[in-house]
């Protein structure tokens, strides 16, 4: 058994496999299939200050090796989470992170202030990269100055681990990552979904009610790997990699590119047991290649001479 324990700054995890927000519900949806406490961390659904109904149906389009979604941060709001969901999730024997989103800086700060005292939430993931909301969301994450502004504001009220989820819908993701680091982020996670679109030629209509949506799945993996590699070189804070990871080999590629941990997203929709399989597969890779710890392979990409 290799040592899979992972430190993302001050955040200690039993292994480096996390679930991506919005792909794993609140964990219990998967409890029939796996022991969810074996996952390194569960990042629960994007949470906002107030209840959000999300976008209209249809919200999903299957695309080659992936899917588009336009859920639009449907959730019952942070107060509902604290009162009705947190009592259950706090019993899960692994790290639970809350993904926080908002339309304004004041929304983000007010939401985070409600979460800061929750004993069993050791970190938040600040979502400045949702492509499916009209206001805020991705707008904060596609401009270095506005990213820095919202992260700095949240940093003032949140002393625990602050992870910031970055958008790939930018010219230079390293610039945004540096802005996050400057503003006090403890880590960055990337990539959120890529803005995409699907059309039904027979009806001449877009498939999604919102016309555009967020692309995920193995089709985005090469872009995600490239961005993780670029960001890992650009910042000193840890990088959490995600985007189209379907198996342990995919995850290993992200570690080699410089990720300290990974998140599994769309793969949960196809195989609800995939997270545990990936944890085991990472361990097998380390054992088979003579590594004692997951830290032995982080950033160990061997560039061609």
């Amino acid at each position: 058994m290799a040592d899979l324990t992972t430190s993302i700054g001050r955040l200690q995890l039993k292994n480096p496999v996390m679930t991506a927000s919005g792909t794993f519900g609140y964990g219990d949806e998967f409890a029939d299939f796996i022991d969810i406490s074996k996952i390194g961390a569960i990042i629960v659904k994007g949470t906002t200050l107030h209840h959000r109904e999300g976008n209209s149906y249809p919200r999903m389009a299957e695309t080659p090796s992936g899917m588009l979604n336009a859920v639009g941060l449907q959730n019952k709001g942070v107060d509902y989470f604290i009162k009705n969901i947190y009592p259950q999730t706090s019993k899960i024997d692994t790290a639970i992170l809350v993904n926080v989103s908002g339309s304004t800086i004041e929304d983000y700060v007010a939401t985070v202030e409600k979460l800061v005292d929750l004993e069993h939430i050791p970190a938040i993931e600040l979502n400045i990269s949702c492509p499916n909301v009209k206001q805020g969301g991705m707008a904060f994450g596609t401009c270095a100055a506005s990213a820095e502004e919202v992260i700095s504001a949240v940093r003032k009220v949140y002393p625990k681990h602050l992870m910031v989820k970055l958008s790939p819908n930018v010219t230079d993701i390293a610039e945004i990552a540096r802005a996050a680091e400057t503003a006090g982020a403890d880590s960055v996670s990337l990539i959120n979904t890529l803005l995409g679109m699907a059309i039904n030629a027979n009806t001449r209509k877009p498939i999604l009610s919102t016309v555009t949506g967020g692309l995920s799945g193995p089709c985005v993996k090469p872009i995600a790997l490239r961005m993780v590699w670029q960001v890992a070189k650009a910042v000193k804070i840890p990088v959490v990699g995600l985007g189209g990871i379907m198996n342990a080999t995919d995850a290993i590629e992200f570690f080699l590119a410089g990720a300290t941990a990974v998140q599994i997203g769309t793969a949960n929709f196809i195989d609800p047991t995939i997270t545990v399989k990936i944890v085991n597969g990472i361990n097998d890779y380390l054992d088979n290649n003579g590594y004692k710890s997951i830290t032995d392979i982080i950033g160990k990409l061997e560039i061609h001479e």
Partner: protein
Amino acid sequence: MKKYMSDLIVTANEQLNNQYFLLKLTSKETLPEMLPGQFAEVLVDNSATTFLRRPISIHFVDTANNELWLLVQKIGDGTRKMGEFVVGQSVNLLFPLGNSFSMPSSHQKVLLIGGGVGVAPLLMMGAELQKKSIQAVFLLGARSKNDLLELDVFAKYGKVYTTTEDGSHGEKGYVTHHSLLKEKFDKLYTCGPTPMMKAVAAYALKNNIDCEVSLENSMACGIGACLCCVEDTKEGHKCVCTDGPVFNIKDLKWQI
């Protein structure tokens, strides 16, 4: 109800005609309890064109032979590939998923209205009603007689009436025009194309009949995680995969 992810084995793939097939699957273990109206998420091949699972209604559970039946129409790449499944092949399923049709009380007069491949969950419902000694009546509609499926199988569980749009079988026209609807029923269960279900729902509302519909919104996970398959209800967006697929029409916000 506990959900399972299991590799089942194809015992039969009966091509009913060029559009429809009946897939029979078995398991080494005794199949879990399943309820009428529930569905399975079938992993087709996880290829580039068929990346996600395909949600398919549970058509029937043959407990004597430990078989799960799926009635499928070839519509896209996924269902076409399922039509090529061969006997002995292993197929991965998440099941049983979703809620179920509610059981009527024993004195109620029940009508099950299906259209096209939407007849699938009604067979299992008819079988469950028979177990409870409730006489089901089926009203099955299709474009043409070739689209009316397994009428002899349905007949084992209740009286069968049909409509076809071209008049090639049963009464000509839509199910909601059938003379049977002059009779008074206490409860309607329906599954089929959305325009048909809306017409049935409108008939039910007009005649003050309790009515349940089975929806098939496009979905990814099937277990309430992705929130893609939502239906607008009087209590907000609800997942068809977990809060449905069966809804009472009084809870929906259909414009009918």
